[in-house]
């Protein structure tokens, strides 16, 4: 594990992080930050965390860079050079070194990197690995634990996305009084990009649906699929102007879908409560779904729950992009 590719990547990641903070121009530091996230995905794939790498690539690297660019597009790119006031920098440096030292202090008795007998890998997660398939018939253990054993966490995760999109929409929504000032770039109606994106978008969305549907068998699931679907909408918004996209999915409908996604997830968990079982206990669905045993009911309800997540995340990413890029007026975009 040590001399493998991870060590090299870790050093590279460190360099990228430092560079991204030091670059003067904001846009390029965001691009370097995007590269930093992509390298992070590679490290995590190296360590066997495929689902996390997928999410980081889609959500962490892809979408957040787009958000950064959306904000920077209408504001400044340059940093005003400020006199280097040493006192604040030194004070914070000491503070961080102190906390760093404290963390190092705790290192001495942590298990070394990647040994399977460490307590963290033998206590609870051993049970998951051994019995997840038997109890839920879902080969992808990550999705099994994500959507069933700790479904409550995931439900709140979807709420987090919903809160983000609602909060951003509420904060930025202007009543349209003062129009967005003329940005330098002309609305690009570049034919080639439009044709290429019109060709690619259906495939992207198909792939997104595939990822959502195949969350059980291959890496992926609600979040990653939702982000891909959201990304396809963002691609259309970038290629064409915002008016065009709003016909596809208007802002009101987007918010409504975001709520419905969460309601699907929470509702699916609520039904067992009405049937007398505890919240999010999918085995209660066996009674409702025709011809499925307790275990199969779990795996089907996981799919349903993933769909709910996908809807919310799709509308979430799309909504955040639309608000950020048009500063709440939803009239002109990137």
């Amino acid at each position, binding site marked *: 594990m040590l001399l493998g590719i991870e060590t090299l990547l*870790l050093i590279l*990641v*460190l360099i990228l*992080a430092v560079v*991204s*903070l030091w670059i003067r121009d904001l846009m390029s*530091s965001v691009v370097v*930050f995007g590269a*930093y996230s992509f390298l*992070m995905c590679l490290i*995590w794939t190296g360590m*066997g*965390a495929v689902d*996390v790498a997928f*999410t*980081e690539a889609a*959500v*962490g690297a892809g979408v*957040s860079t787009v958000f950064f660019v959306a*904000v920077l597009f209408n*504001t400044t790119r340059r*940093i*005003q050079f400020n006199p280097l006031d040493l006192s*604040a920098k030194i004070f914070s*440096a000491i503070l*961080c070194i102190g906390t*760093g030292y404290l963390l190092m202090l705790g*290192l001495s008795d*942590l298990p*070394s*990197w*990647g040994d*399977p007998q460490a307590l*963290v*890998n*033998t206590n*609870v*997660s051993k049970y*998951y*690995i*051994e019995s997840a*398939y038997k109890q839920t018939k879902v*080969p992808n*253990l*990550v999705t*099994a*634990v994500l959507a069933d054993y*700790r479904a409550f*966490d*995931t439900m*709140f*995760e979807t709420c*987090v996305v919903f809160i983000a999109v609602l909060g*951003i929409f509420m*904060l*930025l929504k202007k009543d349209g009084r003062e129009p967005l000032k003329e940005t330098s770039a002309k609305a690009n109606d570049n034919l080639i990009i439009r044709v290429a994106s019109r060709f690619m978008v259906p495939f992207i969305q198909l792939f997104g649906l595939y990822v959502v549907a195949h969350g059980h068998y291959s890496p992926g699931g609600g*979040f990653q699929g939702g982000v891909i679907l959201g990304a396809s909408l963002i691609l259309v918004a970038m290629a064409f102007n915002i008016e065009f996209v709003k016909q596809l999915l208007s802002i009101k409908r987007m918010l409504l879908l975001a709520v419905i996604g969460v309601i699907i997830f929470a509702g699916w968990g609520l039904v067992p409560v009405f049937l007398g079982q505890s919240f999010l206990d999918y085995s209660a669905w066996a009674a409702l779904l025709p011809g499925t045993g307790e275990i199969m009911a779990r795996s089907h309800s996981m799919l349903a729950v993933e769909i709910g997540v996908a809807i919310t995340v799709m509308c979430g990413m799309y909504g955040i992009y639309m*608000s*950020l890029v048009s*500063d709440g007026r939803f009239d002109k975009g990137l």
Partner: protein
Amino acid sequence: MILKFNYVIMIILMMLGLWAMIAKKNIIKKLIGMAIFQTGIILFYISMGAKSGSNIPILDYYDRYKPIDAAQYANPLTQILMLTAIVVGVATLGLGLTLARKIYDDYKTFNEDEILQEIKNEHD
């Protein structure tokens, strides 16, 4: 100590993020620092769950029914926690950017010192 190399990197990343959040004057740089800080923590959790020489935690077709040896597969629990952490990170980033955007609308700058200056002369 050599075997604990990844924790050292994780600590350096976190402290870098923390330092940027506090010392950097530009608001966007602060947000990048915050994102780096969060990815540092995610790295810590994932490297906890990594098992050397282990497979990804997806049982392929053949050995679903064979007795499963836990050491073969990476730890799924830490990965789930980190899925949530990434999504939370993006949500916070989104909100941070919105606030940065509104600050820019009001004060026309991302530089912290200029904003505080403007508040001071607004105040008196």
